C-alpha cells in the first residue's frame, strides 16, 4: 500500500511534468568512492544496509552512488520534488530506488507542509548522507550513522520557521513509516519496517552555528523470517532447560516493539574553524537494540581550498548476553548460537579516530581522503560484515582508508 502510494505520487509528478516542462529543475550528484582496509576479519562498511565491505586486499566501492533530483515549481507555494539514488544494494526494488517523492506546500513564510516520501530528519546528516559533496567527512562517522539504515519517511511533516534578529528557529513535527534493509553475514537480509513513526525536531541556525535536537518514537512493523524460526524453536524448549527462554522470546518478537531515538547536535563553521558533534541514545522494549549510546566530536579548519577534520566517534550498548540453556546438545547449542546472533546483533563497543581531508577542485567537485583507526572491543559488530572470525582470529584494531571524488551538477 505504501509503495503504491509512493508510485502514485511519482506517476502524478511525471504527468505534471509533461504539462509544464518549462518549470522543471534537474539536479544531480555523484560519488565515486574506494575504501581499503587492513582487517582480515571485519569487513569495513559505513551503513548496515551495505552488502559489500572492504577487507585486507579486497577494496570496496560500496560507498559510491549517483543520484538525480527533479523539482517542479507548480506555483509560488507548491513544489513537487522527486529524487532517485543508485548505489550498491543487496536487492534492487523500485521502492528502494525512490529516495524522495513529495509535494511541498508553503502556506506562509513560517509554515511549510510536505506529504509523500520525504527525507527522515533523524540525525544532522541523515537526509544527505549519500551526497558526498554536501559534507566535509569522507563518510559520516560509522559509530553514529551506520546503525540506522532508514533515510526516508512515507508520511507528512509540518515545519514552523521563525526568524530572530540574528538566527532562525525551526520546529518540525513528522509522522509516517519507513522501510530499509539490514544486511549481515551469510546473506542475511531483513527489510526492516518502522511503523507509527512520530518525531519532533528543533533547530536554531545562526550565520556560523547550527544547534539541533530530535526525539523520534517508532514501532517495529515486522519480524525477520529467521527470528520467526528461532521463536518457533524456542517455544518447544521447557523452562527448566532454558530458564531465560521467555525473556528471549519477548526480545526476538520484534514486531510491535517500541524504539526511541533521542539526539542532540551542534555545528560551528565560521569558514575558518569547524566544530561538529552529535550525541544519540537509542532505547527500546527489546533487548536486541537497547540503550545504544553513540556520539562523535570533530574539530578542524578550512585552509584555502582544503578542509581538515579530526574526529573521535564511539558507540556502546549494554545488551544483556543470555547465559543459554542449562543442558548442552548439538541442537541446543546450534539454537543458542542462532539466538545470540540475533540478540547480540547490536552488541557494540568500539571507537574510531578519523583524519579527513577535503579539497574543492572546482565549485562543484571535491576530492576527499579519510583515514580511520578503529578499536573494536566486540566482534562481530552490526556495523561490519565478517569472515574467518573466531576467538583466536580477531582484529581488535584495524585501519581503513577511503578516497572519493564527489560531484554535484
Amino acid at each position, binding site marked *: 500500500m505504501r509503495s503504491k502510494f509512493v508510485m502514485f505520487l511519482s506517476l502524478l509528478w511525471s504527468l505534471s511534468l509533461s504539462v509544464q516542462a518549462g518549470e522543471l*529543475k534537474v*539536479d544531480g*550528484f555523484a560519488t565515486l568512492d574506494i575504501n581499503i582496509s587492513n582487517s582480515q576479519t571485519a569487513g569495513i562498511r559505513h551503513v548496515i544496509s551495505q552488502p559489500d565491505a572492504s577487507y585486507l586486499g579486497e577494496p570496496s566501492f560500496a560507498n559510491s552512488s549517483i*543520484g538525480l*533530483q527533479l*523539482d517542479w*515549481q507548480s506555483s*509560488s*507555494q507548491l*513544489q513537487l*520534488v522527486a*529524487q532517485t539514488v543508485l548505489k550498491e544494494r543487496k536487492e534492487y526494488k523500485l521502492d528502494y530506488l525512490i529516495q*524522495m517523492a*513529495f509535494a*511541498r506546500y*508553503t502556506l*506562509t*513564510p*513560517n509554515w511549510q507542509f*510536505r506529504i509523500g516520501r*520525504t*527525507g527522515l*530528519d533523524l540525525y544532522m546528516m541523515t*537526509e*544527505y548522507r549519500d*551526497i558526498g*559533496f*554536501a*559534507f*566535509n567527512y569522507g563518510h559520516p562517522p560509522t559509530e553514529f550513522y551506520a546503525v540506522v539504515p532508514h533515510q526516508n519517511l512515507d508520511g507528512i511533516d509540518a515545519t514552523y*520557521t521563525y*526568524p530572530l*534578529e*540574528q538566527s*532562525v528557529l525551526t520546529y518540525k513535527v513528522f509522522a509516517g513509516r519507513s522501510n530499509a534493509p539490514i544486511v549481515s553475514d551469510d546473506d542475511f537480509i531483513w527489510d526492516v519496517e518502522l511503523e507509527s513513526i512520530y518525531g519532533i525536531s528543533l533547530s536554531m*541556525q545562526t*550565520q556560523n552555528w547550527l544547534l539541533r535536537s530530535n526525539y523520534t518514537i517508532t514501532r517495529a512493523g515486522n519480524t525477520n523470517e529467521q527470528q520467526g524460526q528461532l521463536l518457533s524453536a524456542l517455544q518447544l524448549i521447557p523452562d527448566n532447560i532454558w530458564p531465560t527462554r521467555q525473556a528471549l522470546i519477548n526480545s526476538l518478537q520484534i514486531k510491535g516493539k517500541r524504539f526511541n531515538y533521542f539526539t542532540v547536535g551542534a555545528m560551528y*563553521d565560521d*569558514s575558518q574553524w569547524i566544530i561538529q558533534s552529535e550525541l544519540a541514545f537509542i532505547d527500546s522494549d527489546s533487548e536486541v537494540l537497547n540503550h545504544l549510546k553513540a556520539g562523535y566530536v570533530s574539530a578542524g579548519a*578550512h585552509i584555502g*581550498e582544503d578542509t581538515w577534520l579530526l574526529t573521535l566517534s564511539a558507540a556502546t550498548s549494554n545488551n544483556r548476553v543470555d547465559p543459554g540453556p542449562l543442558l548442552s546438545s548439538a541442537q541446543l547449542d546450534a539454537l543458542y548460537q542462532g539466538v545470540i546472533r540475533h540478540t547480540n546483533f547490536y552488541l557494540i563497543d568500539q571507537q574510531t579516530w578519523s583524519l579527513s581531508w577535503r579539497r*574543492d577542485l*572546482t*565549485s*562543484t567537485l*571535491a576530492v576527499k581522503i579519510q583515514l580511520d583507526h578503529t578499536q573494536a572491543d566486540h566482534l562481530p559488530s552490526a556495523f561490519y560484515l565478517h569472515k574467518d572470525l573466531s576467538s583466536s582470529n580477531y582484529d581488535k584494531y584495524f585501519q581503513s582508508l577511503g578516497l572519493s571524488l564527489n560531484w*554535484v551538477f
Partner: protein
Amino acid sequence: MRLKQFFSIILPWLLFVTCSANTTDTLVVIVHPGNLNQHISQHQLVDLYMGKYAAFPDGTLAKVLDYEQGHPLRTLFLTSLTGRPIGQINAYWSQVKFSGKASFPQAYQSIDAILEEVASTPDAIGYVPASAVTEDVKVVYRFVQ
C-alpha cells in the same frame, strides 16, 4: 597542465567578461517598486539566499531570483554576502536542496532577465550591478565596496 589552466583561469575569466561588462560594479539588491519594504539587512538576505527563510521583513513570501550556477555574478554576490568561498556555499546548498528542505532559487541567465522579472513581479527579489538599475525596480540593499 595547460588544459587545467584553461579551465581554472581562462574559462571563468572569459565567462566573466562576456556575461556582462557591468559585473565589476557594486551589486545592489532590487525588488518591485510597489514592494513596501524599503531596506533589507545583510542577515535577512543570507536567510533568503541560503534557503533558510523566504520572506521580506514585513513577512510577505518572497520569490527569490538568482543567476544560474557558475554565473560570475552569482559567485560574486554569494561570496560577498556570506564571506565564504563558493565551494562551501555550494556544499551548504547541496545539503538544503538534496534533503528536500528548500528548492534552489529560480535561476536566470542574464541581468536583463532578472530586471524584467523583478519589474513585473510584486514579490520578486533579485540582484544586479548598480549601473544596470532602471526606474522599474527599487534598490533595497547596496554592497559597500
